[in-house]
């Protein structure tokens, strides 16, 4: 140890007392908002909230103590606009957005308040960030970020329903603007490579769900892919129910489609992302800029198979599918 180290030691003793506490939660009560693009009564909400708050708690942020979390909901653009205005009126430090659609609505109201999205299929394509490594604006979050997933969904659907010869991708052009362009090319090329007819299935409102699916299901050999889309999430009950009624094997991007009766889902673990979103909230509350926080790609991709639905559809799930599945619902 050299003398200057000793001096530094003493200087440190004087300079570092008390230890820097600027990064510690708990200085004052911070206000954040959470905007979820579902109806307020959606049973998914409590799960998301619980995971999000658990993630915050692990980082030292506790609602009601050093943090005040305001939750708002909205299943459609108007409702989201109103909720977003309410949240903005509270002048939150951050707004957590559940999906691309919610981010899109928020960005129409603010360009400054940090926004953390829990999942966005194509944040670059939607114009939320300039690059994943350096978002550059007031928005950051998590993405599934694999356009190749279009082909993967098709492969998995074909594996469980090998007799399918045409597959439709359902999307709402209003809420999933980027989604269609993002996944569709990979899906289309994959479909052609295995002689399956790719079909675009735009749905513009809830009322169109049943008629469109009924029309598609009239002929046999049809399969359905529902890409990540706020619209699909909101109306998942009607979609799953109509697919079953039309006996169309379908694959979805999120687990709760499968748990609510969908045949299978393959995609990110959304609840895990809510937990991980807390880390971004933490960093922003501690002073980091969302422009510098890279958008993370969710590495965890789960396969969930609903055996009950498969049986109802008369589908035999191959052994390799069961081996691949993270969760099998019986």
């Amino acid at each position, binding site marked *: *140890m050299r003398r200057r180290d000793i001096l530094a*030691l003493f200087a440190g003793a004087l300079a570092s007392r008390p230890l820097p506490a600027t990064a510690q939660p708990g200085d004052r009560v911070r206000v954040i908002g959470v905007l979820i693009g579902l109806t307020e009564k959606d049973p998914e909400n409590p799960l998301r909230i619980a995971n999000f708050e658990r993630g915050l708690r692990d980082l030292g942020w506790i609602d009601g103590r050093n943090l005040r979390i305001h939750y708002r909901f909205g299943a459609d653009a108007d409702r989201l606009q109103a909720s977003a205005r309410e949240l903005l009126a509270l002048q939150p430090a951050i707004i957590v957005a559940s999906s691309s659609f919610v981010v899109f609505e928020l960005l129409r109201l603010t360009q400054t308040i940090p926004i953390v999205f829990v999942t966005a299929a194509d944040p670059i394509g939607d114009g939320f960030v300039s690059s*994943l490594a350096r978002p550059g604006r007031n928005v950051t979050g998590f993405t599934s970020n694999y356009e*190749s997933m279009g082909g993967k969904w098709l492969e998995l659907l074909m594996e469980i329903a090998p007799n399918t010869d045409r597959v439709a991708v359902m999307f709402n052009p209003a809420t999933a603007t980027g989604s269609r362009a993002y996944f569709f090319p990979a899906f289309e090329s994959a479909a052609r490579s295995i002689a399956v007819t790719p079909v675009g299935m735009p749905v513009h409102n809830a009322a169109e769900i049943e008629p469109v699916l009924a029309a598609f299901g009239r002929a046999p050999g049809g399969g359905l892919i529902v890409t990540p889309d706020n619209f699909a999430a909101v109306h998942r009950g009607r979609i799953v129910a109509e697919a079953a009624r039309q006996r169309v094997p379908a694959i979805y991007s999120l687990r709760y489609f499968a748990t609510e009766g969908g045949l299978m889902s393959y995609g990110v673990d959304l609840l895990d992302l809510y937990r991980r979103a807390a880390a971004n909230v933490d960093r922003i509350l501690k002073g980091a800029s969302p422009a510098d926080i*890279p958008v*993370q*790609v969710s590495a965890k991709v789960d396969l969930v198979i609903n055996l009950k639905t498969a049986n109802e559809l008369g589908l035999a799930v191959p052994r390799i599918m069961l*081996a*691949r599945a993270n969760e099998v619902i019986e």
Partner: protein
Amino acid sequence: MKTPRAGTKPITPAQTRGGLFRKYIVFFVAVVFLALAANGPIDIWFSYQEQRASLVHSQREQAEAAAARIGQYVKEIENQMGWMTQLPWSASTLEEWRFDAVRLLRQVPAITELARIDAEGREQARMSRVAMDVVGTQSDFSHDPKFVQTMASKRYNGPVYFRRESEPYLTLAIAGARRDNGIVVAEVNLKFIWDLVSEIKVGKRGYAYVVDADSRLIAHPDISLVLRNIELSELAQVRAAQLSSNEVPPEEDQVGTDLQGQKVLTAHARVPSLGWLLFVELPVAEAYAPLYVSIMRSGVLIVAALVLAALAGIFLARRMVVPIRALRDGAARIGSGDLNQRLSIDTGDELQALGDQFNIMAAKLQDSYANLESKVDERTHQLEVANQAKSRFLAAASHDLRQPLHALGLFVAQLRGRIRAAERDRIVGRIEAAVAAMNELFNALLDISKLDAGVLIPNVTTFPAAQLLSRIETTFAESAREKGLSLRAVPACAWVRSDFILLERILLNLVSNALRYTTHGGIVVGCRKRGGQLRIEVWDTGSGIPQDQREKIFGEFYRLGEPDHDRRAGLGLGLAIVDRLCRLLNYPIALTSTVGKGSCFAVTVPIGDARGRSVDVPVPIRVPRDVSRGKLVVVIDNDPLVLDGMGGLFRSWGCGVVTADTDGAAITGIADCGHVPDLIISDYSLTNGKTGIDVIARLRDAFDTPIPAFLMSGDTNPEPLQEARASGFHLLHKPVDPMTLRAMVNRMLKNDAAARVRL
């Protein structure tokens, strides 16, 4: 001390005020400060070393553990992939291989893609987590490095790369056991390493990260840093670690700087087989936080201890200094004469003892002052008593002289008248008696005067007591018979060592005194041996001496009893002379007496050793041959009456006489005679301040002959007596008895004649 002199000026309090007090406090504080100041840094130094060593040690352990886990993880993936290359590729094994691949993907979420390439470098199958699985693409990888290297060295791991600039990926490839089995290639997402690294906790703000062989950051708790794909070779510790193959970095490299520029304690470990480095770092600020706390604590402790030391110093200094100041002030007040000053120091220690000693000293000082004063008073009183005694003595002496003088005047007047021869003889007898009385008085006074003047030097010899006693008996036998008293000297065989004449004088006075106060019965003189001494006792059956007068009888002119003051009762000087002689000879004198029965005076004298001693007793003076007839005698005196009387006396003895009042007149007179004088008799005190000694010397010079000479003096002052004695001349005291004078003249002339014969 009323006013301090310059030399003993006391130190003023202002010069020393507070000095000790300050010194005490400064000393205390300095000692405590030094002790703590020495202890603090040493303590901190050791805890710094220990803290640092233990932190670095723990960091290295964590780094090594994490690196081992990463290595293990990769190793397991490789093992699994190894199973998938057990069999050579063929269409029949496709399903089996797919199944294995699905299982591997299921087991290892980090693997995003698995590919099988045959021995020719053709891709046969590709299983993906996020894309459609494909079979038999036949893509050519034969020149791809991963294929070439894997075929060459059985395994391969490529550089870490980022998918879409954000996802770290590693390509792993394993070759089959046999060459024609081909290889399996896996694209491994490295986020699992991030999770692993995020779990490593060092202190509160410590962290771990991993760099690859090119120093690119591939894992860090702050994922954004990794996603930015940064390169860390500018960090000193990374550079040093890359350069050194050594697992244990040297001491100097334990401190580095992290990306934020803050100092960190760093340790690293190498991930087996991948060539990566795992660093565990802890901000120095946190690592040393306990030290800073320790330093602060030491500081607070030092300050507290200093305050305590100051308080203790003040307390002790007060305990010391307050009593010392009290002592100083007390000493100053005593110095200024206030002897009543006492100190009250109640500290129960040496200072209190000092204060007590101080008080004792002051008390003694006060006592000795008082004592001195009383002594002065006593001495003054003694002087007054002595003065009064002197006055009484003079009054008594003059009274006792006046009486015979008065009688003489009356007798001389009677002689002038016509009287018969018988009447004249009676009157002449009375005149002679009066003169004898006066003579006796003057002799006694002279004795006292000589004793007081201290000019008597005892001539101590050894002689038999019997000799002395018999002389006493002889001397007083007649007087005793006349008074009808018995006088007996008890024979004694002892020898005494004393001055014969002075001891005889003592006894003469005592016996004379006894005779005087005894009217019936008798006197006994006897001796008793007491140890080495002889007690000579004179017993009488006289009136006795009352208790209250036993001291007074030794005073001058003190006579016991008779108010009628018979001259025969004595002069009252006898015992005074005895007292003085005894004191001169240092003989104790004792008196026992019973009123009406008698008294006993006892003198204790030393016994002499008789052996080999001849009897040395002054022989009685023989009646001298008349040597004076026809001699020329010079008499010098300033009193014409004395000159006249002396001249007549010498002429009646048949001498030639020259009388003069000065030496000059004497020389003139002698010149008239034309004869060198045979004897010079001079008064001691002459006119013009000259002394007899001067005159005798002048005459001797004038005739160049040591003419015999002696002095006469009426002085009783000690000084002339001592001077005369020092000159070597004999001195006769006036009044001089004609017999005494004749004896002296004859002795002088006879000695002179003898000297001349010898010459």
